[in-house]
């Protein structure tokens, strides 16, 4: 049975991805700050903060002793905060960078160690269309995801020798808690900048993840795939 690690599985896209890969026959190891919202014989949950280095290392060690190796990682956990730059406190900046950048890096590092022996690892990071669209009000969120994209491209090169691919997906807005509170007018303006003008759905993300996970995708690495025709 293949093992996939998905961060941020308590709700939203992370939970939907976990449900999907459990149904597809994978062993899913998830995490979130709180308790699990998934009950399944092949689901294991770790309650942790993704930016807590000791906790992430401890999770990786437990996984090594229980499962041996990891086949794929979906770095889904992320937070956003829509606000004008002039009104954004440093505490918000630090919180977003810690979760989105430090958390993504720590999981890449620790799970790549567990993928070394499989010779076919897959890492998929999550970015956002807010970065290429330079969305006002999303300065820190978009900047954090720009860092994730850079991390993705460089890790793709560093991990290629270990036969680990590293790619990213940039979803458009999807109905989740992450965009709750974004005014409708802002949302309409954003959709107008997409080639395909509709809200994203979880199935759009799953389709892209499935593509990166395919065995035949071993020649595809360092790529960022924006959904909705954003470029």
């Amino acid at each position, binding site marked *: 049975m293949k093992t996939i690690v998905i961060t941020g599985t308590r709700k939203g896209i992370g939970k939907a991805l976990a449900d999907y890969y459990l149904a597809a026959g994978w062993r899913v190891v998830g995490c979130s700050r709180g308790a699990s919202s998934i009950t399944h014989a092949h689901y294991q949950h770790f309650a942790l903060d993704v930016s807590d280095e*000791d906790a992430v*290392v401890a999770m990786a*060690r437990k996984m*090594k*002793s229980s499962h041996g190796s990891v086949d794929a990682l979906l770095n889904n956990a992320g937070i956003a905060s829509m606000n004008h730059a002039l009104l954004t406190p440093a505490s918000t900046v630090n919180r977003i960078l810690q979760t989105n950048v430090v958390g993504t890096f720590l999981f890449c590092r620790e799970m790549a*160690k567990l993928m*070394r022996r499989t010779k076919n690892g897959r890492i998929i990071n999550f970015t956002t269309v807010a970065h290429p669209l330079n969305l006002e009000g999303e300065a820190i969120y978009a900047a954090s995801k720009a860092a994730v994209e850079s991390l993705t491209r460089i890790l793709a090169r560093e991990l290629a*020798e*270990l036969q680990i691919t590293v790619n990213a997906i940039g979803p458009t807005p999807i109905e989740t808690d992450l965009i709750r509170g974004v005014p409708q007018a802002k949302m309409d303006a954003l959709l107008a900048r997409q080639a395909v003008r509709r809200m994203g759905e979880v199935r759009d993300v799953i389709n892209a993840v499935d593509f990166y996970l395919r065995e035949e995708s071993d020649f595809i690495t360092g790529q960022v795939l924006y959904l909705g025709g954003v470029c």
Partner: protein
Amino acid sequence: MPDRPAIEALILESVQLLAEDFELDALKAPTTDTALYGEGGALDSMALVNLIADIEEALAEQHDVSIALADEKAMSAKNSPYRSVRSLTDAVLERLPA
């Protein structure tokens, strides 16, 4: 805490396993004086990264010790701690909690 012979044995075993994985004949029977990285060493940079990760993992698994061997001190050291089994053993011992 593990003593010097225990650390050296752990490093020698890690080098041996890595040599099999990477098919490095020069490292299949390592000793204390075996050169690893740099002048006369058989490891390239990727093999060294793997060896460091293996040693850190083995220390955690066998001795419940968590250390970072590629810390800033190691990266800026005049003499690389990665040059031989002996110097790597010294580096581990220096980083073990008191």
